[in-house]
C-alpha cells in the first residue's frame, strides 16, 4: 500500500469502523425489537405452543427439516406445513404418528418419535404458530 496511508490510519479505521457499525447494528436491533410485535404473532404463543417448541427442539427436527428456511435440507420446509396440510393440525399429528418404525426400504423416512398425544398436539400447534409469522411472503409457493 502507498506511503501516505499509515498503519495507525488503518488501525483507526478498524477500531472506529467496528465500533460505529456495532452501534448501528444495536440501533437496528432496538428498532426491530419495537417492530416485532406486529409481525411475530407473539399473542398466539401460549403454554401449548411453548411446549411444542420444546418438543420440536428435543427431537432435533431441525436436523432434517428447515423452519422458515433454516435448518437441514434433507426434508421439507415446515414453516408453512400447516397451510400445505390444508390448515389442519390433525393432518400434521396423523403424519408424525404414523411414521413406520423401520423406515421405508430405499427411501428417506421420518423416524417414529413415539410422541404422546399431548406432545403431538403441542408440536402441531407450534407449527401452526410458525405458519402465522409474517415472513415477507416467503416461501414463494406452498411447496416451501
Amino acid at each position, binding site marked *: 500500500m502507498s506511503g501516505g496511508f499509515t498503519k495507525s490510519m488503518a488501525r483507526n479505521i478498524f477500531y472506529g469502523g467496528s465500533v460505529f457499525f456495532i452501534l448501528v447494528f444495536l440501533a437496528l436491533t432496538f428498532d426491530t425489537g419495537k417492530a416485532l410485535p406486529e409481525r411475530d404473532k407473539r399473542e398466539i404463543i401460549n403454554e401449548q405452543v411453548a411446549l411444542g417448541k420444546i418438543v420440536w427442539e428435543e427431537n432435533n427436527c431441525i436436523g432434517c427439516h*428447515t423452519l422458515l428456511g433454516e435448518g437441514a435440507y434433507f426434508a421439507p420446509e415446515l414453516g408453512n406445513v400447516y397451510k400445505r396440510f390444508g390448515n389442519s393440525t390433525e393432518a400434521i399429528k396423523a403424519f408424525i404418528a404414523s411414521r413406520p418404525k423401520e423406515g421405508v426400504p430405499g427411501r428417506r423416512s421420518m423416524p417414529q418419535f413415539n410422541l404422546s398425544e399431548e406432545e403431538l398436539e403441542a408440536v402441531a400447534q407450534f407449527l401452526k404458530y410458525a405458519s402465522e409469522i409474517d415472513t415477507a411472503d416467503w416461501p414463494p409457493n406452498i411447496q416451501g
Partner: protein
Amino acid sequence: MQYQSQAVAKPYFIAAIALFVGQVLFGLILGLQYVVGDFLFPEIPFNVARMVHTNLLIVWLLFGFMGASYFLVPEETETELHSPKLAILLFWVFLVAGVLTVLGYLLVPYATLAEITGNSLLPTMGREFLEQPTIIKIGIVVVALGFLYNITITVLKGRKTVVSTILLIGLWGLALMFLFAFYNPDNLVLDKYYWWWVVHLWVEGVWELIMAAILAFILIKTTGVDREVVEKWVYVIIAMTLITGIIGTGHHYYWIGTPEYWQWWGSIFSALEPIPFFMMVIFAFNMINRRRRDHPNKAAVLWAMGTAVMAFLGAGVWGFMHTLAPVNYYTHGSQITAAHGHMAFYGAYAMIVMAIISYAMPMLRGREAANSDRSQVLEMWSFWLMTVAMVFITLFLTGAGILQTWLQRVSENPQPFMQVQENIALFYWMREVAGVVFLIGLIVYIASFFVGGEERRLSRAGGSAAPAPAQARKE
C-alpha cells in the same frame, strides 16, 4: 521451536485432525443417505449423522484455533505461555466433553439425551449447530474462559504485536458471542434473531479475525516480509470484515419475521462482504511475491495461498451468489446454501487450520523448520485432492440447488420437495463421488505425517539459498 511451552499445541493439532476424519466419514454417510434414503436407518438417522458432522467440524476447528494460539502467542509475545499445565488440562477436558457429546448423539435418542442432561432446566438444545446438551455448553464456556485467561495473561506479560492483539479480539469475541447460545425464548422470531448472533457473528465476524491473525503469522514467518507491511494489511482487511459483516447479519433477517428493511441493509452490506476476502488473496500473493527468503516449508505456503483463494471463492463468491434479497427469496434454504457452506468452511477455516498445522507441526516434532521433500510432496498432493474434491462437491451441490430452486419454487407447476429431491438425485451421486475423493485426499494428508526422509533445513545466509526473487527485481 523457540519456546518450550509451544509444545502444548501438538495434542490440539492431533485431536483436530482426528476429529476432522470423523467429520468427513459422517459427511459421506450423509451424502449416501441423500440417495439411499434408508442407509443406516433407524440406527443412525440423518439428523443424528448431521449433528455429528457439523459439531465435529466446529470442535475440530476450535481445537485448531486453540492449538494455533498456543503455538503462535509465545513467539509473538516472546515469552513462555503463562501455564502449559492448564493448557494440557483443558485439552483433556475439551476432548472428553467433545467425545461424550458425540457418543451421546450416537448412542441414545436425542430426546433421551435432552432428558438425562436436564435440558428442561435451561432449554438450549435442538437448534442447528447448538445441539450440545446445556451442561456441555456450560463446559465449553469454562474451557473457553480458562483458555482465554491463559492466552491473555501471556499476551499481557510479553511483547504486544498486532497479530496477537487481533487474535485476542477474535477469541474473546468468539467466547462472548457464544453466550447467546443460552438465550432461547419461546418466540421463534426472537430465537432465530439472536441465534444468528452466535452463528453469523462467529463465521462472518470474529472467526475472520482469527483467520487473518493466523494467516498474517504464517506469512511473516515464511516470507520474512516486514511486519509493518503485514500489520497494515491486516488492519485494513479486518476493518472491512467487521464494517461489512456486522450489518451483513441482515442477510439472515429477510424471511424470519423481522422487518422488511433488513432486505436493504442485508443486501447492501453483505454484497460488500467479499471485499475483505478478496483483499486477503491480494495480501497473501503480494507478501509471497515480495518474500525476502524462501522458506523450506513449501507445503505451508501452499496452504496459506490456498486458504485465501478458497475462502474468497467459497465465502465471497458463493456467498454473494445468493445474498441479494430478490435472489435469496428463491434460493433460501436450498442446496445453494449447502454448496456455499461447504466451500466457505473448507476454504476459510479448515484450510487455515491445516496451514498452521503444516507450518507448526514439523517444529513441534523436533525438526528445524520443515519436513522432508517426500513428505511435503505428499502433503501437497493431499492439498490438491481435497481442494479439487471440494470444488466439485460445491459445483454439484450448486447444480442441485439451481434445479431444486427452479423445480420447486420458480416453474409454473411447482413440484413437492420430495419429488424434486428424486429428480436431482444424479447430482447427489456425483457429490458423493467427489466426497470419496476428498476422503482419499485426507488419507494422503495423514500419510504425509508418516513419511520420513531428510528434512528440509533453513537456508543460511551465504549458503546454497535459493535466490530471493523480490530482491532481484526492482521494487
